[in-house]
């Protein structure tokens, strides 16, 4: 009893602004509208710099990035050299700051980055020549971003495989409810690089067609690149649906470093702890945004965790069938799409899904569906046996 009353006293932060840059657009709206239309950003790519053979991935329009970034740096009168990922992160943060009163230069504003590999493309000597030493380091990425925006705090980077994004949001929420900061800007980003494509290829985990989350014929994931930014604040947004962070947790399977638990243990625990923090029972969940990578084991594991919480009738989707697995950005951009589903009371179908292919009969969305939704669950899992969950609600 004592624990629950304590939880109710703390300030739960609001989601006040966001942005997604992906193959499907350079704003949250563009991305959401493309997803509504059932567009798929995963395409065949021939680029021997990235991979010796043809491969599938969801990639960002680099000429649009250069053009939009060019206009942005003119505004900040900054003429330094930036890497592709830095440009993406800076542009995404800048866009998310528009129409907010968040002072990015304030000591009460923190920036958290979420990435698995950052500027890893600079390990290739041909690419690193233009940049200073350490530029491939993740802490340096944080420094570049802090300096660009003139933020006085040390930018913290979270690198925790594919759950980085959800952990970053959970961490930011604790910063606000602990009154350490008034606003936290959380940006996730990762690129489709030779490093990552060849690694997943060696794991034989890439699908030959755009990936099919939870489908009977799914046979692997599709990679994607994206940057996404969420701003959490102690104050509600003006003139916008008020959606609050309610609870979040991570948990380890303690089972295998490159395969999920067969009982969904870590995922189950992370959801359980997120529900406890939110102070709600699982039946209050209206909709679930799954990790849904479309690898045989991940989706099976998630169906088990969902069923263990008696959530098998709740509508579930995964947007990886459209945008691929965007690694450190995934937890952020998928949470933003979830926010957008809540703002529009519209649930998105899972692209690539046709017939249930997991042993627990969960409710995968096959059509875009209008529905009043108040409380939603975001799930994430990744290498290292890591799992995370987050619960958000309309106020």
């Amino acid at each position: 009893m004592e624990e629950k009353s304590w939880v109710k006293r703390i300030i739960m932060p609001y989601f006040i602004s966001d942005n997604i840059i992906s193959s499907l657009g350079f704003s949250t709206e563009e991305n959401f509208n493309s997803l509504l239309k059932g567009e798929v950003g995963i395409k065949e790519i021939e680029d021997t710099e990235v991979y010796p053979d043809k491969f599938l991935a969801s990639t960002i329009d680099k000429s649009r990035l250069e053009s939009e970034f060019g206009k942005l740096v003119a505004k900040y009168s900054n003429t330094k050299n930036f890497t592709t990922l830095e440009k993406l992160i800076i542009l995404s943060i800048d866009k998310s700051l528009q129409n907010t009163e968040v002072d990015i230069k304030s000591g009460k504003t923190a920036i958290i980055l979420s990435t698995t590999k950052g500027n890893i493309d600079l390990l290739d000597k041909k690419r690193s020549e233009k940049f200073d030493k350490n530029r491939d380091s993740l802490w340096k990425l944080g420094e570049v971003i802090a300096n660009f925006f003139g933020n006085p705090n040390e930018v913290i980077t979270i690198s925790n495989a594919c759950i980085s994004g959800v952990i970053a949001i959970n961490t930011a929420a604790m910063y606000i409810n602990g009154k350490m900061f008034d606003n936290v800007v959380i940006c996730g980003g990762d690129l489709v690089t030779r490093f990552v494509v060849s690694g997943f290829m060696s794991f034989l985990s890439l699908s030959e067609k755009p990936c099919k989350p939870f489908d009977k014929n799914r046979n692997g994931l599709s990679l994607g690149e994206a940057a996404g930014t969420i701003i959490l604040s102690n104050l509600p947004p003006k003139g916008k649906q008020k959606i609050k962070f309610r609870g979040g947790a991570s948990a380890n399977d303690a089972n295998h470093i490159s395969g999920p638990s067969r009982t969904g243990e870590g995922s189950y625990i992370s959801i359980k702890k997120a529900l406890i923090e939110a102070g709600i029972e699982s039946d209050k969940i209206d909709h679930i945004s799954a990790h849904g990578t479309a690898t045989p084991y991940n989706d099976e594991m998630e169906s088990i965790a969902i069923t263990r919480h008696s959530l098998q009738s709740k509508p579930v989707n995964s947007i990886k069938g459209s945008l691929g697995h965007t690694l450190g950005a995934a937890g952020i951009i998928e949470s933003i799409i979830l926010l957008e589903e809540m703002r529009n009371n519209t649930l998105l179908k899972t692209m690539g899904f046709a017939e249930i292919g997991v042993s627990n009969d969960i409710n995968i969305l096959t059509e875009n569906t209008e529905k009043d939704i108040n409380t939603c669950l975001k799930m994430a899992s990744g290498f290292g046996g890591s799992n995370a969950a987050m619960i958000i609600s309309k106020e």
Partner: protein
Amino acid sequence: MEDLFIGKYCHIKNNKVFVDGKLAFAGEETDVLKSFLKNLYRFLKPSYNKFFKMDEISKLGFLATEFLLEDVDISKYEEDVALIFSNSDSTLITDNKHQESIDEDVNFFPSPSVFVYTLPNIMMGEISIRHKLKGENTFFIVENFNAELLTNHINNLFLTNKAKAFIGGWVNLNFHSYEAFLYLVSKDGSAIHSAEEINRIYTNIEE
């Protein structure tokens, strides 16, 4: 709310291991890290075959945790043990190893057993498997050891009822040096958990 206390802590650097600031093992000064870690494994005798397939930074974090949990029963906390690790160079050495296998199209031969270790949290996965720890995991990358960052995160997780016991610290490896510093935080211990005290023990080595 009860207070949190700092328990045991372990440093590994310059081919020496210190537990609670006192020398616990000294390797050959001239040994490369690989040999030092092998000798340290022989000294501890964990009889754990998975050790041999780990990359060097995971081995380093793994062995530091072996010292930390040698006579501490943390398994009772199971899903309430959080691992909050940090470093500045992520998985630099293993990243370079993977990069060498993909640099040229003619010698293109990436290996999944190398690639999986190009994520810094894999070390926490290995430790979780070894000690059956099912709690929170977070890996932070910052330029230098940052006691405030770790202390705040641990306190926040404790205050939001997400963990009761913690292994916090720093495990870093680059081309020039390595360092592991891990510590326990729970309701057991003598010093109150604070960034000031963490900074004090971080530099407390009785050479």
